[in-house]
């Protein structure tokens, strides 16, 4: 069966008109078509938040779990059935805040999943509080004197932790984001894609124009295998924000390091109660 845009259907959404999430959904569908990925062969995993509702808006297998817990659920799914393509799609609060510890250890583990972070630098579904990526000084009703905590630099953190694939894209550039998602899915290990996204309702500072003015694409001359350079690029934030695969290496995936068979998923392994008899003698 050939996959086209119709394969993923059309759904009503609960997003605000003009939300950056529409751009991410469009780019994701485009990537899935180009990857020729049939809906039943993949699982979209999310946590909680407006971004985490995305899996409900296209045909796919879905595990929409708890706030912050998308990555462990996705990891469990991939471990049990490595024939499934597993993508996580959630927001900055979910992945970098509530689920921060899971992200840290998922990067170390390096299982073959693609983590798409809708990073709008604000908690939107709870009506506008600071997120781990909110800029210093960003004012909300809970942070009336402005954010005083240093923002997380997700890609620098990922690279420092040994991530094999760290990319940044922009919800307003469908073609680029689609390409990053395709590259992330093809990468044999954990791919993290930090997607800059505007929030039309709560983030008046980092709006579409703010990002549009600053983002630029890394050119072919950029060497994404140079870790030191990559760290530097991942911290570039201000007047200029680079987009692209910031860092990529060929470290072994969890599947390779663990020795999971490629041709047989765990879920297809036989259950043989009688086999227990063969180890009972060890206890005599």
């Amino acid at each position: 069966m050939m996959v086209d845009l119709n394969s993923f259907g059309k759904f009503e959404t609960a997003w605000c008109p003009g939300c950056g999430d529409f751009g991410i959904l469009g780019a994701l569908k485009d990537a899935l078509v180009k990857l020729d990925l049939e809906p039943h062969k993949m699982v979209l995993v999310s946590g909680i938040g407006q971004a985490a509702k995305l899996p409900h808006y296209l045909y796919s297998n879905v595990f929409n779990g708890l706030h912050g817990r998308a990555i462990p659920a996705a990891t469990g799914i991939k471990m049990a059935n490595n024939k499934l393509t597993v993508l996580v799609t959630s927001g900055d609060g979910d992945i970098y805040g509530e689920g921060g510890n899971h992200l840290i250890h998922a990067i170390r583990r390096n299982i073959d999943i693609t983590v798409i972070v809708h990073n709008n630098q604000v908690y939107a579904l709870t009506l506008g509080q600071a997120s781990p990526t909110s800029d210093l000084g960003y004012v909300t009703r809970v942070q009336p004197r402005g954010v005083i905590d240093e923002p997380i630099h997700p890609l620098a953190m990922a690279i420092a932790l040994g991530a094999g694939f760290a990319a940044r894209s922009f919800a307003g550039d469908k073609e680029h984001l689609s390409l990053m998602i395709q590259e992330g899915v093809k990468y044999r290990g954990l791919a993290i894609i930090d997607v800059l996204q505007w929030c039309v309702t709560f983030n008046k500072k980092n709006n579409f124009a703010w990002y549009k003015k600053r983002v630029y694409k890394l050119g072919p001359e950029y060497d994404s295998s140079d870790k030191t350079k990559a760290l530097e690029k991942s911290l570039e934030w201000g007047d200029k924000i680079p987009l692209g695969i910031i860092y990529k290496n060929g470290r072994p995936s969890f599947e390779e390091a663990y020795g999971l068979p490629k041709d047989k998923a765990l879920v297809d392994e036989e259950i043989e109660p009688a086999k227990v008899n063969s180890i009972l003698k060890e206890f005599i």
Partner: protein
Amino acid sequence: MNVDITIKIAGEAGQGLQTIGRLLAKAFSRGGWHVFANQVLQSRIRGGHNWFQVRVSDIKILAPAEVTDILIALDNESVYHTRELSENSITIFDSSLIKYNSEKGLILDIPFEKTAKESGGNKLISNTVALGAVLGLLEYDINILFGLLKESFQEKDQGIVQANIQAAQAGYNLAYQKIKANKLPRLNRTNGHPRMLINGSETIALGALAAGCKFISAYPMSPSTGIMTYLASQAEEFKVLVEQSEDEIASINLALGASYAGVRAMTATSGGGFALMVEGLSLAGMTETPIVIVDAQRPGPATGLPTRTAQEDLEYVIYAGHGESPRAVLAPLSIEDAFYLTVKAFNLADKYQIPVIILSDQLLADSYLTVDSFDVESLKIERHILSDEELKNIKNYKRYQITDSGISPRALPGNPYGLVVADSDEHDEEGHITEDVDYIRPEMVKKRNRKTAGLLKEMSAPIQYGPPEAKNIIIGWGSSYGALKEAVDILNSEKEKVSLAHFNQVWPLNKEYFDFLNTAEFVCVAENNFRGQFAHLIAGETGKVIKNRINKFNGLPFSAAEIVREYKRLKNSL
């Protein structure tokens, strides 16, 4: 019971108590004797005062005894145990290593260290001298110990094996010659075929293997860690993926992901880790994802006594989790029972698409019991997952189809016939997020909770032990069965007609199983907790308040003797 001997090895952490304790226990189980061995440890790696006790009998025993017949004293604090000694008890120690100033029972000063060195070894094998001495006192076949020493040390080198064998023989001879007044029974025969010796953690792990569990994610926490450790040792053979996760929140979410994808999955922890899993427990309820969770209880609150035992988490695991969704709680009454209940836990989880909690504890997890066999052949594995053939014939597959039983047809992601959508939000029959409060929400709540009706029928009746006509009844649950059963035997032998109603399937509670309360004259509930949690449950479910309670909450398990004492005290105070 003709033979009932308890040997206690007492000393510091790091002195090898567990190693010699297990060797001793295994020496007896290989000779066909029944063994119950348990350990009482402090939460530290070196130092402190710990003990490992091995109770040996000609018949099956399931609990520790109160009296110590042979005490191997390896540190100064061992003198603490003189209160457990009888006049026939024997204490073995080395006066060059420790001070032991008690006159209770018979005292035997054996130079463990000197003998070890003379046997061609170093002081590390002093313990082997002590082992040999115990066998000498009991005139037990030392060749069985030699066999075990060979198996234990052959991978190191032949010299170590020889030194250990000589040290054991020397210890044997010293004890055998020195004690003329030894009044302990002699074990100079076998008591049947060699038996398995297994602890509770290993048994739950074996049950999981037999049930086809393919996935465990857990965070190390005493006293639950043994389950993950044993599964890791069999991971390749049985194709089990073992993942030590970053925290217990990850543990349960990993397992739920794996279960959603179709494998039988579990996690194991103790009370504190369970607290972190509660959010995930609620997720299992909402997404109707099967999972088996072991809570190996230890005394709380908070960190409590990490290496001691308790039954304090009963109400907690039954009520934990936001919102309302069904679950089952099984509390194995013995190590053997843990095997079958683990298989049952996986079957129930799959059939009802619910979390099933196995409520274990440190006593069950860390104790060793002799077991003749596990009846693996009779096990039934029931997955309740739609095949591709079945799915092919379903138009518009709905993961959360509303049904009379409350159980919806379960398919796995990856099948080409129906997408599998699971959501922690309230969802429609397809699994998609909804806020339809007029129809879908109430119908989904009812659907999920309808499963309890079926589940209730799956819960077995309590074990009734003792004279059926008895009007005096002790109620217990979980791992205290061995001590309570023995207490019932003692009381009946003293002409007090008592029976035991012991529950190993504690939630949901079937009211019908409490009909005996209508005719009973004296009832008491014995639990390893302060508040009497099972008694509360009984009151809540049946309306019958049982005021007589035996509660122990110092971190140690019940012994039969103290149950007998407490029972009499309650009865006499009426």
